[in-house]
């Protein structure tokens, strides 16, 4: 509990520091930082539209962040969540458009399953390449993201094109569209699905034998092998698990937000999710909160752009400064510093350098 309070204070200080730096930028361009920040907060939380935007941003980010974090627990640095979102999305769109003959609940389920399966198959590729040939997954997933993007891009400007001015698919059947509960924002019931999926994912990781295997392999693969857990299989399964989460994110975006597959819709969803997970060092419990924070920051930034004449580039700069400062764990680590000073009292007060033991 005390720790929680400490980290809250730390977080508040980080925000304060970021705000000060941001304020300097804003004052340089001759705007009033107070009203700018008011616009930022308003843009993130005030009113149905703004709050809805934040929630709509949060939904896919939480899933992609968990997708990355789950991979990381199993020892995978999976940059490929973005590709999984794209392919999950296109699968959901295809089923949503063409399988309208199914009754509604089954049709909806089919969309989700299709997205999960396709995304899982996609994540299987780098997983298997790493497990069986030692191909570095950072390398393969960075490259495969482009492939996923071009595949979907081809589909929606070719075979699946709606024939309108944009590269996009036909709309999915109305029955599978997810109800948007904060109109006009696109926050939709997918958020609750995402939260449930997130809870299940965290539960799987912490409470099941599968999760145990993932964590064991991620922490020490040769130990895993020795106790009879096949690290290669588990690594591949971890990637598949990660892919499933990415696929669900894509499915929710398609069914809940857009209603059709829009070319390049997931640009940065995967990356920002990865960021959310990394900032909290893949802590599964903190990851959703970080995703929410990033989601709010994003809609707040839009609000700032909309309500003031602060240019978007400044808004984005401030956002980036926020993130950079938020990554720095040891900033404002008063507790630790004090302890060192105390214990070093009789001797030198030089900062500790006990890094690795």
């Amino acid at each position: 509990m005390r720790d929680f309070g400490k980290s809250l204070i730390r977080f508040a200080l980080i925000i304060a520091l970021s705000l000060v730096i941001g304020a300097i930028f804003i004052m340089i361009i001759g705007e009033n930082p107070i009203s700018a920040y008011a616009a930022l907060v308003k843009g993130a939380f005030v009113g149905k539209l703004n709050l809805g935007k934040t929630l709509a941003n949060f939904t896919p980010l939480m899933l992609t962040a968990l997708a990355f974090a789950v991979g990381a627990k199993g020892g995978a640095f999976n940059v490929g969540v973005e590709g999984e979102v794209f392919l999950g999305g296109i699968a959901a769109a295809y089923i949503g458009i063409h399988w309208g003959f199914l009754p509604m609940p089954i049709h909806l389920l089919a969309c989700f399953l299709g997205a999960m399966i396709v995304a899982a198959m996609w994540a299987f590729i780098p997983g298997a390449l790493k497990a069986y040939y030692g191909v570095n997954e950072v390398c393969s997933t960075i490259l495969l993201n482009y492939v996923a993007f071009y595949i979907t891009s081809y589909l929606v400007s070719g075979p699946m094109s709606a024939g309108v001015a944009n590269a996009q698919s036909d709309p999915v059947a109305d029955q599978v569209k997810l109800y948007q509960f904060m109109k006009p924002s696109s926050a939709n019931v997918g958020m609750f699905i995402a939260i449930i999926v997130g809870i299940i994912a965290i539960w799987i990781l912490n409470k099941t034998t599968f999760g145990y295997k993932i964590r064991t392999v991620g922490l020490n693969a040769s130990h895993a092998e020795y106790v009879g857990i096949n690290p290669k299989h588990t690594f591949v399964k971890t990637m598949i698990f990660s892919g499933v989460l990415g696929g669900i994110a894509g499915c929710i975006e398609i069914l809940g937000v857009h209603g059709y597959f829009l070319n390049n819709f997931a640009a940065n969803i995967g990356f920002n999710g990865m960021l959310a997970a990394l900032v909290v060092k893949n802590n599964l419990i903190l990851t959703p909160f970080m995703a929410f924070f990033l989601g709010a920051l994003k809609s707040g930034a839009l609000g700032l752009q909309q309500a003031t004449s602060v240019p978007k580039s400044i808004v984005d700069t401030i956002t980036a400064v926020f993130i950079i400062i938020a990554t720095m764990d040891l900033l404002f680590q008063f507790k630790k510093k004090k302890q060192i000073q105390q214990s070093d009292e009789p001797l030198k007060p030089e900062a500790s350098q006990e890094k690795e033991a």
Partner: protein
Amino acid sequence: MSSFVVEMKGINKNFGEVCAVKNGHIQVEKGEIHALIGENGAGKSTMMKLLYGLFPHDAGDIWVSEKQIKNMTPKRAIDLGIGMVHQEFMLVNELTVLENILLGFEPKKGLTVDFATGRAQVQQFIDQYGLDIQMDKRIHQISVGEAQRVEIIKILSRGAEIIILDEPTAVLTPQEADGLFEILKKLKADGKSVIFISHKLDEVMKISDRISVMRQGAYIGTVQKTETNPAQLAQMMIGREVFLNIKKSEVNSGAKVLDVQDLWTSGEKEISKIRGISFEVHEGEILGIAGIDGNGQSELIEAITGLRKVEKGKVILAGEAITNLSVSNIRAKGMTHIPEDRNKRGLNRALTIWENIIATHIGDQAFSKNKVLSLQHSIDYANELAEQFDIRPRDVTMPTQSLSGGNAQKVVVAREVAMNGKLLVASQPTRGVDIGAIESIRSILEKVKEQGTGVLLVSADLEEILSLSDRIIVMFEGKISGTLTASEATDTKLGYLMMGGKTEEAAHA
């Protein structure tokens, strides 16, 4: 003021909550071999790391050559003539032996490393002390004994006058250990001071001049070698009497439990490839495998336990062929295994004691219903084992990385022994653990055997092999160089076979 080359007074060191050293002392005279002994986790390594400046100490004074040193760093320590061979070798696997030796003190030719000069310098020390090493091999290609020699040359070439050796003999054969002692004597003769950490009391008695004892982070006392005996030392270390030489029970061997037939398997090095090995282990028997590290023992064990692909031949466990089955399958058929490296294989250091204990049970109904872990049952079970095997501290929710070596090893032993398998493969079961733990682990193995389980024991410690095994096979360059019964085996015979000699000749040795 002090007249010692090294004096540490009132040293305290905490790692977070863990108190590693409290009120630690040591005083080393010039030109002596000073042994530092204590149980696992007594704080010996920590004391020495503080002396070497690897991390700052919380309280106390350090004097080196009559100068008080504050802000010690490794660089500073080296400049002061301190050299340390760490318990875990500080050698970079991917670099060559020569590169490792020169690292940090490279002779330069312009910007580049002057390897020629470096090589010549190193050769000087090789010649002076008769340390045989191959400078162009990479670390992962050389044996542990050789790696140790590399470490010693490394610190000598940096001009060390005060030499710290942290458990140098844990990984050596008796012959290699004797070689090391010769070197230490030469160093002493050259006026260098040596701090020598060991768990082996006979070694300590053999080599040291004075002995300091630590227990649970605290300094207990210093004695002259000539005024003490192993029993007293053990008492100082542990606080009670110990009995290392357990009585070997009668061989009561039954059916074949392991049958290895003409086994061939790959090797990390040319001499560790297994090329056609056959032997049997019976119920209620301990079969010891002796041999110099790196002659294929690790590969053989991996092949038997499913961790390495068998290229030719058969492994039969209690009548069932287990050749190239998956590890989980082999374990399901009754194989249990204490691996040689507890940190790499045996434990998941970041996980808790209970999570490590159930690692081999997660498929069992009792531990996971429908693939959901049963937390309460797992913890209960772990607590039970902790009690039974005396794992200290008795808190199974502690991460294993905060356990001392001996207790960490007990976690592995407990998990494997409690499986009640048909065969227990025990590889270096007491490496680097203190005598208290050695005592208990050896008696556990003895008990396992009495229950009728077959035990395959691999150890570089000949004393261990001799005191536990009913039969002994000796490995040399991936083959069996000889098989002996317990009654006919002696140190010298084994030593001879370990160097590749034939059995008949060994008989005459």
